[in-house]
């Protein structure tokens, strides 16, 4: 089933939950709503679920406007952060609850619950109450309950936030695999950019109720359309430097005090002559080199595979991912090479990309 949000807004008096959201979700697509808390991602999800009624705009399921359709008539499944398993029911009763509401015959109910339980690998836990299940098991029961009525749309509201890091990794992979196998259209709300990037076909980044970007993960990463997206997506986050781009002898130079880098002309020409602009570069695109910009190491943080080092260049500072075998120390002076093919430029006023916005 396709989902389409048109100028969708939700307001409570003066409080804006979601502000004029426009996006399309294709049949069988996995879309993540990503943003910090309070950005309106859950509000939007709950409007899709039918719990909240939109103040303005339309929600379409396969071209049909469903604004006033009750949640029970939308044929959706939803997984909550708290799991929301009914505490007085056993795992079996929880999973088969949607079928019970449809007055499905007992035999069929058992059969389908068993099928879902086998899929989720919780067959042996069916007669336990939620309080007798671990977090991961509860998560599987909640997933089973969302899947049992074979919904046309699956909604996830930060489903992995309450799990420990290891389990989160396992469940992440499982949910992704399950979604592909079942081919059911899914919306996944998260504040964790790694979850969004790894699981989704397309990521909708939201901030203060507004949609900031809506694109596939790699595009989001390589071609951020706003300063917010560039800073929010990626870990460790992108470095930002205030620079001025000038053309000299046919080359484009990004310059600030103590910093001068030649940038490729296709990127440089879009930022040249605009006065102060913001240069963005990811930590993995800066290397310790023989020639380049020199700076002083402020701190070294070993991450295992890499060292994250903070280098002061004049008044600015940048994060760099470097090889631990280099044995860099605090206070040492290093020369940094910038992979300028990957630089981004943003307008400091509008905070929009100078490269990717038309």
């Amino acid at each position, binding site marked *: 089933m396709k989902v389409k949000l048109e100028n969708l807004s939700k307001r409570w008096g003066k409080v804006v939950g979601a502000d004029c959201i426009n996006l399309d979700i294709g049949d069988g697509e996995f879309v993540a709503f990503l943003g910090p808390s309070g950005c309106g991602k859950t509000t939007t999800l709950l409007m899709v679920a*039918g719990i909240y009624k939109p103040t303005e705009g339309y929600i379409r399921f396969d071209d049909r406007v469903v604004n006033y359709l009750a*949640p029970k008539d939308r044929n959706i499944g939803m997984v909550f952060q708290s799991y929301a398993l009914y505490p007085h029911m056993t795992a079996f009763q929880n999973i088969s609850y949607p079928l019970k509401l449809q007055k499905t015959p007992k035999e069929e109910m058992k059969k389908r619950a068993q099928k879902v339980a086998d899929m989720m690998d919780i067959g042996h836990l069916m007669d336990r109450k939620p309080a007798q299940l671990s977090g991961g098991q509860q998560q599987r029961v909640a997933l089973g309950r969302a899947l049992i009525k074979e919904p046309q749309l699956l909604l996830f509201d930060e489903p992995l936030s309450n799990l420990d890091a290891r389990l989160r990794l396992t469940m992440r992979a499982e949910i992704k695999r399950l979604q592909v196998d079942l081919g059911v259209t899914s919306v996944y709300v998260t504040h964790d950019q790694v979850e969004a990037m790894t699981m989704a076909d397309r990521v909708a980044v939201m901030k203060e109720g507004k949609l900031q970007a809506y694109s596939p993960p790699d595009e989001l990463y390589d071609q951020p359309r706003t300063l917010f997206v560039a800073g929010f997506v990626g870990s460790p986050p992108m470095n930002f430097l205030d620079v001025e781009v000038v053309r000299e002898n046919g080359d484009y130079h990004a310059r600030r005090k103590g910093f001068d880098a030649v940038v490729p002309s296709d990127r440089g020409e879009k930022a040249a002559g605009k006065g102060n602009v913001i240069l963005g570069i990811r930590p993995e695109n800066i290397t310790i080199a023989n020639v380049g910009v020199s700076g002083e190491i402020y701190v070294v943080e070993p991450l295992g595979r890499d060292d994250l080092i903070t280098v002061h260049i004049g008044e600015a500072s940048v994060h760099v991912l470097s090889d631990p075998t280099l044995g860099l120390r605090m206070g040492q002076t290093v020369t940094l090479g910038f992979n300028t093919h990957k630089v981004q430029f943003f307008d400091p006023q509008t905070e929009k990309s100078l490269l990717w916005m038309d």
Partner: protein
Amino acid sequence: MNRTSRLERGGTPPLSHAPSGEETSSIGARMRSRLEAYGFLSPAVLLVTLFFFIPVIIIFILILSDLKSANFGTLQWWLPVNWSLENYAKIFGNKFFPKILGNTFFYVAVTLTLFIFSSALLIAVLTTHINRRAGFFFRVLWLLPRLTPSVIYIMMWQRMASRAPHGILNQLLVPLGISTGGDLIQAAPWLFVIIANGMIGASFGMVIFTSAIEAIPKDFMMASKVDGASTWQTIRHVILPSIKWPILFVITYQTLSLLTSFEQIMLLTDGGPGLYKTEVWALTAYHRALSNYFGNNQWGYGSAWAVILVIIGVAAASIYMRVFKFDELVQEPKIDLL
């Protein structure tokens, strides 16, 4: 200098202190703190002893005696010689005993079912499913009967139910042909006894059920809606099971309170009209002990009625706890780890 003062503040016990000396001083301190505790407790202990334990002991002696206004001062009721089970023989031999017992069960069961449980739950569910402010307003309305002093509240009912053309109810019912215009309380005493009491009692359950429903995590309601439940199905499958404990509490508490309450009935019908038409157990105990004919208050006999009522109350409470599986409600959840 600095270091020593820091050490002292650090609380390491100086070695020079003899262990025995330390012990005695700590025993002294413990005694003192215990005395303090008893000191603070003593007013409460005194009050409970004076106004609860001693009266209870007196009651248990009284029920064995035949103390009444007529022999007060001459009967030595505290002497075992004057004790017997006569009072109980009188109660069970009373020809109105079955009537009073039936009245009590009828009154408690009907008021509890119609008002204190059903109406209270209905008000709580409805007012939590509408606009918050409107819900609050309606709940406040339902608190009015409880806030009104009993005498005024009952007088309002008496005025409403009085003969045509004075009573407002008769003004409605006579044209409809339902009433002939007589006093409605005389015509249907039970109806008024139950409604008047029920409307007071409903607010208790309402307040408790409302807070219990509001305390159910919103996720459960959302999950239920998404799972395909109508509002009624959500109420039945999610809300009601979640407030099982408050329901047990309200039913038990209100059964006991209905069993022992009598002032509204006394003010409204005084057990009438006629002989024992609406006389309930608690009212009988009151009538016998404190409001008898010719001022002959049968304290011993009345107390005997009251003590049986207490036994009935305890029995009812323990039956409720069985039915609602109280043990399971208070049990610790069995969590095991993955």
